[in-house]
């Protein structure tokens, strides 16, 4: 808030005087405190401004007198257009994936006012995963979208608010953190960074040009376009293996291009890949270029066998890329939040970052295990740590 000259006439024993001081503190408004118990001169000064109305707290804001104003009246009196739209909450999570949803389930059950800000999909990457087979409690596995929707409903049932907005920066303003978004500015007593990670790009020629016309990063979204067609899956980790298996529902054949000499996936998935008659795995193979007719669709992939050095074109109708994850931390560039050398957020044992009141949990945290079950567990832990922090700051 822009600063105005503000004098408060009040007393320590008066709850409304304390309320007003607390509100001004939260909104970073400076004021001069004049205790009416200190001298008759102060009382006389106040009475001269209030036509002898002897009530506290009395506020003199640039000559405008307010007697025991409500919070709304204070906000209106100190209102500045550019600062008018700050939405204050106890806790704001940046991201609304499994981590943030788990946090919100816990905080809202404690009556802690919680808002989740999401720029993409509620449920995060988990929501785009076809089948999650290692999430405890689902003996037959669970569809990612189904799990995400259930987490969302559960959080909302307890009062969590999910708002679609892209966060551009966080500012530490002491007791309140300011979160600047595409949907206006928010203030929060505690912030949870739970932005997770996103699929890496290959960064090869053709990848951008043919996005949506043969190049894809979401099998559950776009797999059905490839019924009875040939596909290439790039990657050798759990995501590539899981999504590759999902794509066998549609594709006539899948060439899986793996840079390393083995799959880095769970044994269960490796066995499925090995026993699928639709998948051919090419180890020690780099993906160098995605080919197609300009303005039309993908026709092939140029790949190189690292051992023989032989480069060849694999004919295909589409390419699905799953080559690892990047932390979503670009928005933290000027925040002062400490990242590790790979761009993940560093935290202490209480999941707090180097800035008091800013916490981090889930895939975006340095040292995270990149598992949905862990993300949910960390979300619950973060909620309890945030609760303690809020109790400490009062």
């Amino acid at each position, binding site marked *: 808030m822009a600063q105005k000259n503000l004098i408060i006439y009040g007393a320590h024993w008066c709850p409304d005087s304390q309320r007003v001081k607390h509100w001004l503190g939260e909104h970073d408004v400076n004021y001069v405190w004049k205790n009416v118990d200190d001298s008759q001169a102060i009382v006389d000064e106040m009475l001269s401004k209030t036509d002898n109305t002897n009530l506290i707290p009395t506020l003199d804001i640039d000559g405008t007198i307010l007697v025991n104003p409500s919070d709304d009246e204070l906000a209106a009196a100190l209102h500045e257009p550019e600062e008018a739209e700050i939405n204050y909450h106890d806790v704001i999570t940046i991201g609304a994936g499994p981590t943030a949803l788990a946090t919100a389930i816990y905080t809202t059950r404690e009556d802690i006012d919680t808002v989740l800000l*999401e*720029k*993409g*999909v*509620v*449920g995060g990457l988990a*929501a*785009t995963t*076809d089948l999650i087979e290692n999430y405890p409690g689902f003996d037959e596995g669970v*569809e*990612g*979208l189904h799990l*995400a*929707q259930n987490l969302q409903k559960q959080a909302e049932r307890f009062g969590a608010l999910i*708002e*679609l*907005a*892209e966060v551009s920066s966080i500012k530490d303003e002491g007791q309140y953190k300011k979160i600047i978004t*595409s949907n206006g500015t928010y203030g929060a007593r505690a912030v949870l960074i739970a932005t997770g990670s996103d699929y890496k790009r290959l960064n090869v020629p053709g990848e951008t040009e043919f*996005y*949506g*016309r*043969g190049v*894809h990063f*979401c099998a*559950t*979204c*776009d797999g*059905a*376009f*490839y019924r009875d067609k040939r596909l290439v899956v790039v990657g050798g980790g759990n995501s590539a293996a899981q999504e590759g298996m999902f794509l066998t529902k549609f594709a006539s054949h899948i060439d899986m291009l793996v840079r390393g000499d083995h799959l880095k996936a769970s044994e269960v998935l490796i066995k499925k890949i090995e026993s699928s008659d639709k998948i051919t795995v090419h180890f020690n193979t780099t993906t160098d270029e995605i080919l197609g007719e300009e*303005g*039309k*669709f993908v026709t092939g992939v140029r790949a190189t066998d690292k051992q023989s050095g032989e480069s060849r074109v694999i004919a295909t109708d*589409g390419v699905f890329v799953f080559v690892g994850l990047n932390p979503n931390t670009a928005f933290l560039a000027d925040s002062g939040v400490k990242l590790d050398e790979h761009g993940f957020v560093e935290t202490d044992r209480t999941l707090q970052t180097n800035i008091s009141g800013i916490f981090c949990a889930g895939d975006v945290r340095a040292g995270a295990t990149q598992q949905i079950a862990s993300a949910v567990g960390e979300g619950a832990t973060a909620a309890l740590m945030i609760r303690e922090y809020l109790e400490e700051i009062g």
Partner: protein
Amino acid sequence: MAKDVTIYTSNTCAYCHAAKEYFKQKDVTYTEINLDEQPEARQQLVELSGQMAVPVILITQEDGSREMTVGFDMPKLASALGV
């Protein structure tokens, strides 16, 4: 506000759900063409947009100009919809 908003979706596409949720939050009326329920629309989408992905969002403005978005790109949608 745009004159017409059409979104091509599928049941399993999380980004489609995200886009529809965004329309709901911004009070945007839209027409949904679900490719799981109308498989014949799949080819129509490819011919119309040159895309083999969902969501595809077609926004027609009052002056008849049309803009196409592939995927859920909130800043681009916000500017096209004027919200």
